[in-house]
């Protein structure tokens, strides 16, 4: 973050232009709102004057978005916030955790502006406030005491947990003011194989989701990436084209989920598998990692239910392929047929017993990439804002995924 002098008197033209252009201006932590008001006020008064360099601006705000992250990811998340403001006018608050010997809190403000579609005479602007808490050990309540009063009341409020070392305790002071938690249980670690550390991180992320879901709406981006897969599999059991009788769900014997991106696709594959097992009331009994084909890691787990159904789940890392779920296969104990779901040029192709059907992928980024990969971050955020209610189906899948991960840990110990 560039350190600019603290604003004192009426902002001059250069400073307003800098503010409207997305540059950070440092402000006194106790006077954040005041400084913002002054900047907007000056920008509004001068706009339209012939000799000023900016166009009239419209300030818009439909929600609060607080993004919590560590200092090393600050740039990346500031970029994401800026992208979100294009589609969802909001007050964007970047809450940054930094390591430093001396404890201090600093604040900066800026605006994200863009022209309205088809209009070059007006810009729509959202404000961003960055608050950085530095110290030897992070005190969540300290940062929250600066951030939460900045939340505009009566508008929906979201916390996006972008930090790696989050715990329920870290987030609780924020969530007492914010109604929704946006998290991403996708493993960021880009290693070739799945490390124990990555699995532990996944497990703790899922635990946070489970702990907080009681009081807060929790939306996991990993879960949103697999919604099209869930729909494609579920609709294979209706009565068009590929139409397997729903009663055959009781005879599902094995499922195999192929995922790309090594550990970066693992969480999605696991959630897809546990979504299916929880829908069939199956609970994991044992789980182990083993070397699969071409030395690729393979997770197998056996799940069963009271009805005597036993289902083997295999999660297979694909050698190459886009990050996330790449393929799905289901076999039955009452027949030799197999249900397959794969990518096929912008759609999911569902096949069974000689019949096939396509399900268009609803996200546009898939089309650019020839039908592969996951929705872009901003598209996932769009979905999240649309489905902002508690999701018991996710919660069940997350709990089961976490139970399954714990079984592996036990097996490997």
């Amino acid at each position, binding site marked *: 973050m560039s350190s600019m002098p603290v604003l004192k008197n009426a902002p001059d033209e250069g400073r307003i232009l800098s503010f409207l252009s997305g540059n950070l201006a440092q402000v006194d932590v106790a006077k954040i709102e005041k400084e913002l008001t002054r900047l907007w006020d000056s920008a509004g008064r001068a706009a339209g004057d012939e000799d000023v360099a900016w166009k009239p601006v419209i300030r818009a705000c439909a929600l609060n978005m607080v993004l919590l992250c560590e200092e090393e990811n600050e740039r990346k998340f500031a970029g994401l916030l800026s992208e979100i403001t294009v589609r969802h*006018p909001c007050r964007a608050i970047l809450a940054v955790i930094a390591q430093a010997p001396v404890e201090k809190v600093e604040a900066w403000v800026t605006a994200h502006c863009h022209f309205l579609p088809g209009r070059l005479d007006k810009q729509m602007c959202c404000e961003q406030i960055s608050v950085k808490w530095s110290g030897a050990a992070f005190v969540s309540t300290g940062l929250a005491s600066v951030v939460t009063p900045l939340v505009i009341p009566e508008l929906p409020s979201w916390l996006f947990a972008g930090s790696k070392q989050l715990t329920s305790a870290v987030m609780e002071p924020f969530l007492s003011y914010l109604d929704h938690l946006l998290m991403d249980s996708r493993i960021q670690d880009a290693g070739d194989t799945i490390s124990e550390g990555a699995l532990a991180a996944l497990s703790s992320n899922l635990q946070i989701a489970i702990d907080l879901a009681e009081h807060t709406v929790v939306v996991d981006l990993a879960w949103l990436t697999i919604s099209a897969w869930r*729909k494609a599999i*579920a609709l294979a059991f*209706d009565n068009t084209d590929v139409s397997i009788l729903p009663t055959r769900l009781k005879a599902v014997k094995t499922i195999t989920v192929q995922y790309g991106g090594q550990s970066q696709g693992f969480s999605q594959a696991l959630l897809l598998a546990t979504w299916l097992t929880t829908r069939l009331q199956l609970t994991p009994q044992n789980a182990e990692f083993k070397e699969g084909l071409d030395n690729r890691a393979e997770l197998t787990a056996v799940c069963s239910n009271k009805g005597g159904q036993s289902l083997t789940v295999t999660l297979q890392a694909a050698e190459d392929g886009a990050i996330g779920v790449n393929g799905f296969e289901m076999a039955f104990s009452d027949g030799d047929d197999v249900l397959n779901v794969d990518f*096929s040029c912008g759609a999911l192709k569902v096949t069974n017993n000689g019949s096939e059907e396509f399900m268009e992928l*609803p996200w546009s980024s898939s089309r650019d990439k020839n039908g592969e990969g996951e929705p872009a971050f901003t598209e996932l955020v769009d979905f999240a804002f649309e489905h902002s209610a508690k*999701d018991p189906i996710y919660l069940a899948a997350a709990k089961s995924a976490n139970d399954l991960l714990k079984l592996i840990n036990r097996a490997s110990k």
Partner: protein
Amino acid sequence: MIEEKVLENPLLEGLALERHVDSLSFVIFGAHGDLTKRKLVPAMYALFLQGLLPRGFVLLGTSRTPMTDEAFRILMRESLIKFAPDLPFEEDSWTRFASSLYYRATDSSKPEGYEVIKSTLAELDSKHGTKGRHIFYLSTSPSLYLPIVQGLAASGLVTKVKATEPAWPRVVIEKPFGHDLASSIALDEHIHEVMREHQVYRIDHYLGKETVQNIMVFRFANGIFEPLWNRNHIDHIQITNAETIGVEGRGAYYQEAGALRDMIQNHLLQLLALVLMEPPIAMDAEATRDEKIKVLRCLKPLKPNTIDRYAVRGQYGAGFIVGAAVPGFREEESVAKDAPTPTFAALKLEVDNWRWAGVPIYIRSGKRLAKSVTEVAVHFKKAPHRLFDGEQSDVEQQENVLVMQIQPEEGISLKFATKQPGPTTMVRWLNMDFKYGTAFGARTPTAYERLILDCLIGDPSLFARTDFVEASWQYIEPLLEHWDNQKPADFPNYKAGSWGPKAADDLIGSTGHAWRKL
């Protein structure tokens, strides 16, 4: 349907499948026409990309021009790229969509054509699993509506189902629905001979617009406006539909239609009904439409001897639109040199009911006006007592105005008084503005997308019901007759680029009001 599935298929739970569409075939008459290319096929493709079309789906186009399926697909692909640049066109998705597109050349005025359509549908039903569910979309000139409905019935493609049975097949009818009261009743009578009302979808694309739908949400989801929404607090209402465009190559059609038939009988009376209606008992199709029709029934009928006090007509002469010289209506292509057609109409309406008695409602609609804007402005009564010194006594006291803007920028604004900072209590009037485009960044579906999806699902809420169409014709019929009998002596009476004829100002001025300066 979905509930049954949820019970037996646990995988469906929690998936957003509530807007479920059964597999079906969608037949477009007039498939070689403008509307199909500009609106219908782009809307269908947009629904397809969102995964909202059923997997068993067929779109069969028909008109007279001979074309193969392949040529039709190519034509539709080209139109899509040309007319729907905001849709993410992708070759693979298009290929999958296009595999559901078929075309048969038939003449809708001849019986043979329906046999071709029938046998083609039978073949396609079994190929695509569309199970004999058919929707027929009439996108031809209105003179073909009746021959098509009768042809469909004679061939057995359309049959009357019981009121309690699912509405298959359905027929969608484009505007204009009739040319006057008699022709609209006659058309309806013929339609009802072969179909029941719940099988008929009369499309009014205005009702598919987001902001029009928002009128209901605004009125009935907010607790603070409805208590004020009556004669005690509202002084008058102005509904404006102003267009800068002229007849755009549709001179022949417009010469016959005019402003009353083209805009007021359908779109603006629908808007009016949404603004004035009572809260429906439920958000279902019939409850809302029941309330809307009551509004039309409460309109004080226009009487020939007093009509000139309630209605004004105009026709544009040559003028300037945004700096460019444009011809007058009578100089437009395919328009007669002495055409009496009104291209502008302004009405004063009175509503005889408990809620609105004594509140004048003004409507104006015109072509080649100074600016393109469609809005509903609700003017509240002035504060009963002038309290503030700073309010200059020589300046006309102002009032709160709530504006629901429909075009071009969708939004809502409220004008209110506030204190001008300073040592005296000077009152200033400001606008509190809410613009849709700034609050919701995502792409808004087009009106046709929304309406076609509703029709596929079988939800007629946003379609015009027979009684509404009849009542709307009934209301304007005396005016149509009056204007037909009294040829206008002063046409053209407003310049292109102005705000209409002077008589329109006098009309609203009769109650001490003035048109909003937009």
